């Protein structure tokens, strides 16, 4: 019962923060510097690791697909398999997981520390809403950066698959054949589909991590606890949302 209450309270707090932040949307043009700083933070911290991870996901997908399909003589379809699973599911999912780990944790830590050291209180007495200058620029930045990260994840992942397809002996299909299959079965719609998913994940991760950071209570020890909570809640939400968003988008 207590847990259910806590969850409902958390949802309420997140929704409130969302509406409060959105009510300041008009101030965004004047917050250009903050927005760009956040874009940089989100892009810069996640891009390298997204690229590395996507490459290896692409290779593993191709390996598994090649292994499973070699008996059917359907190896040409590896490209389509890697293309679709990367674009529709693994790209958005893994990028969101990495975002939670790198960006979500950093956001929670920063806002929790601002809360604990009374910087948020100082903002309140100055009548400068935290939702306006701390949350809104981050939400806007993640919406802009997520598609960029997804495009890179997809391209690198597809490329990783082609490398395996070409050089692993039991697969051994040419990049031309691989990409032909990939292009034939992976439509623009599929990429867009994955991108919409990623936008939802990224937005929710940033919003939830902001909320958890801003609601930190107590001393500096609580900063660490808040970060853990932020990441765990983000990961759970990504997995749960994945099902529902996929169902809606199908």
């Amino acid at each position, binding site marked *: 019962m207590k847990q259910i209450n806590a969850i409902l309270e958390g949802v309420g707090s997140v929704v409130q923060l969302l509406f409060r932040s959105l009510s300041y949307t008009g101030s965004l043009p004047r917050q250009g510097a903050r927005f760009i700083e956040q874009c940089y933070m989100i892009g810069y911290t996640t891009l390298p690791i997204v690229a590395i991870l996507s490459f290896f996901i692409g290779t593993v997908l191709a390996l598994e697909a090649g292994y499973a399909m070699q008996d059917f003589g359907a190896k040409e379809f590896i490209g389509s398999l890697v293309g679709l699973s990367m674009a529709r599911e693994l790209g958005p999912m893994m990028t969101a997981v990495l975002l939670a780990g790198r960006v979500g944790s950093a956001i929670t830590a920063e806002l929790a520390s601002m809360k604990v050291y*009374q910087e948020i209180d100082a903002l*309140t007495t100055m009548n400068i809403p935290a939702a306006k200058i701390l949350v809104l620029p981050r939400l806007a930045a993640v919406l802009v950066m997520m598609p960029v990260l997804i495009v890179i994840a997809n391209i690198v992942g597809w490329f990783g698959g082609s490398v395996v397809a070409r050089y692993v002996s039991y697969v051994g299909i040419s990049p031309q054949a691989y990409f032909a299959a990939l292009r034939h079965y992976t439509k623009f719609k599929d990429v867009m589909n994955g991108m919409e998913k990623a936008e939802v994940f990224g937005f929710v991760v940033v919003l939830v991590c902001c909320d958890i950071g801003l609601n930190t209570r107590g001393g500096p020890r609580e900063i660490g606890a808040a970060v853990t909570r932020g990441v765990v809640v983000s990961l759970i939400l990504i997995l749960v949302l994945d099902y529902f968003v996929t169902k809606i988008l199908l």
Partner: protein
Amino acid sequence: METSCSKTRNPFTGAEANAVGVKVDGVSKTYAGTEVLSNISFDVLPGEIFVLMGPSGSGKSVLLRQIAGLELPTVGTVRVDGQDPSLEETRDRVRLALVFQAGALFNSLSVYDNLALYPREHRSGTEASIRERVMHALRILSVEDAVSKFPSELSGGMKKRVSIARALVMEPQLLLYDEPTSELDPVMSATISEIIATLKNEYSVTSIVVTHDRSLALTIANRVGILMDGKLITLGTPKELAATKDPALVDFLYPKIDIQNPRFKKLENQKTS
């Protein structure tokens, strides 16, 4: 400090600012079953300097948080200029600044940006005029050298001064200070007293000052309240307080160091045994 402006005018923009009063009415505050403030009532008149003293842990900072509207009292009400200070509308209308005990500077911003944040966000003035205001405030507190430093590069006393400067830039009508001189040398403490007095005399700024500094309290205060264990045990002018015979107050205001105190004896015994 420059004091060339005429009365009730703002030190930086010259804007008219009317003095605001504070009414604390039956305020109690309970955290998780522990009563930290109990049934506190007093008024601070517009343009008055009200000093709050009391042993550490007596609830002074908590009381300031209720007055600033950062928390709501468990029982009772606080009114600033007749309105609830926790409402955004009130803070929109009445400029209220709080100098936090630990400074509460924005760690990710330089000293300059810490001070410029308020006028920038509230779009008061051009960047050039904001710069002038910021530098003026830093000069008053002799911390202009720190302008491009970050809070982590400042000493405790410098942080305190920067946070007072940040409050000045807000051109507050009501200024709450939480132990403004606790980390400062005597010369700087005297400067702070001057600032508080000048803001009152020239600009009708209402001040509530929490301090342990008896000489600061007795020189600048119009009235002094003493808080002990969350209760306001006395309230009066500095004269009345200096003449008090109440043993609890005398002990607090003029503490004696007693090396014959049995507490110290105990320590020594422990050391030898």
